[in-house]
């Protein structure tokens, strides 16, 4: 099966979502999305890090130093209250649009 790339808007949403349960480093974010999507979604570093920079700029996450499982100093990204609000807003928006698409697909 070919790797599935995703639109950048969706990537931001997924990053925010996987960070809801706690701070993660970049590689872990990519891994988490990969695993949770049953290995369908693949996050390339070429899209992950630009997206993370954008999220940092928006103030939705903060970066802090931590120690990785391989015992290396690395930055962990943590959701800020503004990021949490953004996630809620994006989720409800996603639900709305998704519902609308679903109903079209079912009835048309």
């Amino acid at each position: 099966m070919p790797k599935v790339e995703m639109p950048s808007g969706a990537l931001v949403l997924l990053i925010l979502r996987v960070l809801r349960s706690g701070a993660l480093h970049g590689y872990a974010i990519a891994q988490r999305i990969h695993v949770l999507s049953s290995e369908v979604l693949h996050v390339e570093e070429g899209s992950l890090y630009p997206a993370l920079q954008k999220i940092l700029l928006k103030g939705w996450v903060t970066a802090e130093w931590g120690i990785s499982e391989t015992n290396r100093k690395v930055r962990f990204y943590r959701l800020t209250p503004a990021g949490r609000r953004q996630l809620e807003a994006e989720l409800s928006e996603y639900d709305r649009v998704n519902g609308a698409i679903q109903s079209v697909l079912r009835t048309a």
Partner: protein
Amino acid sequence: MNELFRRLRYLLHRRRFDRELANDLDFHREMAGRAGVPLGSALQLREEARDAWGWTWLDRLSQDLRYAARMLRKSRGFTAVAVLMLALGIGVNVAAFGFFDLMFLRPLPVRDPGTLLKFARSAPQGYADNFVYPEVAFYREHAKKLSAVMASDDAKVTIDNDAEQLTATFVTANLFSDLGATARVGRLFDPVRDEAPDAEPVVVLSQSFWQRHFGADASIAGKTIRINGQPATVVGVASSEFSGLGFSTPDLWAPIAQQPYFVKSSRLTDFSETGFSVPMWGRLQPGVTPAVAEQELKSLAAELHAQHPMDVWEKESLPSEPGGYANRVRHEMVPVLALVGALGLLILAAACGSLGSLLLARGVAREKEIAIRVAVGAGRARLIRQLFTESLVLALLGSVAGFALGYVVLRILTAWAGIPAWIDPTPDGRVIAFAAGMGLAAAILFGLTPAWQASRRRLRGTITRQFLIGAQVAASCILLIVAGLLVRAVDHATYNDPGFDYRQVISIDPALRGYTPAGARVYFIALAARLRGVPGIESVALVSNPPLGNRWTVVNTEIARRAVNVHINHIDPAFLQTMKIPLLLGRNLVPGDARAIIVSESLARLRWPSEDPVGKPFRLGADDLTVVGVSGSARLVSPEDSDAVEVYQLAQADLMPSMVAMVRTTAPPEGLLRPVAAIAKSIDPRLVPEVQLMKSAFRAKLQTAEASAVAVGVLGLIALLLACAGIAGLVGYAVSQRTKEIGIRMALGARPGHVLSVVLRQFSLPVVAGLAVGVGGAAALSTVLRGLLYGVGNLDPIAYSSAMAVFAVNMAVAGLLPALRALRVDPMRALRYE
């Protein structure tokens, strides 16, 4: 806001952020490497990630700037020529704008100039700049919306027994204190003390007069001097930084309330048309708008009209304009100012044109470099940006150099014009902004097209090049033609009569402003009688607006669809003969002629081209008059104005106090100047008559024309130089580009003339087109000059053809010199080239 803050924080700590990002990526790769995932370019990835912060343009800009600086340093010769061209183009404009700024835009150095207003009188029946003094005094006493009402007026006086004429300014005594002036020595005027009915007569000296005349005597305060023979106490010396309310530089000040004491039969308190009229200023109370003050003055004027129905107009209002400036741009100055601006911009256009051609030619030389850039992936926008950055750096250097040059020129100009000491010629923010704006405009003009062309890699596309040549040719052609016209005008005025003979005439302005009409008449009768007794004097005549003087009465009108300025002059019957103005048709004016006029031939030709003008009715303002004679055309007051025509009326009795006597001598008049002056003074010793040779008045008048001819001539030469540099550069490049082709042609036996024509042919069309546009532009622009050309037509063929000849010869030399290099091309070397 928060986002902006984070963006700025990133900019400040970008190294740390960059290290952190690099660390993240390293870690990611380490982990991904273990999982066996293939990897892309780390550097590119880092750049893409950094893009999110929005600072990439800054990196590119600094890259471009560094590169531009390196390029310009590498080709020092080109940079020097380019900066010099721009400095000339921008410097001329900075000097012109700086002068305009000094004259018109800077407020006077007085306390709070923004709340000062200057008033005028306006009513359905008329308009006047000045007020009779009692009217000013009334407003001063009653206006509540103005914290001060001031008047200031210049007059000629003499001091002690000196023959030298001095300028005294009569001012309301509140002027110094209200404008925040400080005394250098002693005190200045005090409204309470110096305007009291029993106040002793006082004067304040100007600092320069005090230094010149009293040797900066520190104990001057309290000394008594005689003004017009009347003793007065010097109370102090005003500092040279004090400007007053206008541009004049008086030698001393006296309270206007004491004017009757100093000036014989003063009409200061005369509340009528013939009274002493002065300009009026006011200072707004805090928080009051000009409209509110005008409203109050209007109702005060209505009140005053009820008391003096004859002298204050019905429905008189007092329109105001900002009063805190030495000069205001008047309606009639606009064309001349626009002309100066246009000439300045033409220089800039010529500079940008030649620089543009140089850049274009350089673009050809940089073709390889640009090709490499495109090959490694530079986009077109990126290329334009980079090349334009180079132009911007050049423009910045040019602006700085132009600013310095402009400042030097301005200093010379102000020193030459002898401006008052309180003007500080240091450029202000406006001038700096102007220089910067000029630089930017220049960069766009000279830099954008070549950059665009180079990026399209269509350098040999000749349209742009031809356009640039054409623009330079047109711009410098216009400047040369205008200079040629001015030179012709000076030449013409020097060697031709202006329609009257001024060489053997002395004028006497006795300044009888205070006299009654009858008193003035008695004075002139006595003067004429005494003068006629002097051997060597042929005739004496009276005139209201003396020839070559600075008084005039003009009606601007349109006759036969041409704008003409009708100069009205009031004369006595002896005038035409005294000035040697021929009477061509009809008769002279005779005493008692109330409704008769003599018109000049120039007017008659326009108004009645095919009829006899004598006996025709002529309407002048509200008066119906009859033409009784036609005189030769003599532009008395403004010989420089080609559109001026004249009418003469007999001076009625009420005009006598403002008349000037003209004295014709049988021999050169120099020796008679002294005796004539002595006679004019001896009739009334309290007078300060102004006696001068018409010859010197004419010379003074010509000096302005000479100065402008020199100034425009210099501009024209600069433009010519720029155009020549541009053409020489382009031809040189054309030759170097076609070395191979020329070599082949020569090897095949082409004649030298043919080779030259191959090289130069491409330039002939734009040069001819530029010449045509230049001539057309000069013809259009020079209509503004008609009033300054002393009768030389603004389409004068000699000026046009000689300017174009100068231009053509220079262009030919500038083009041929580099083209001749083509003939020295060695065919064998040329073929092996590359």
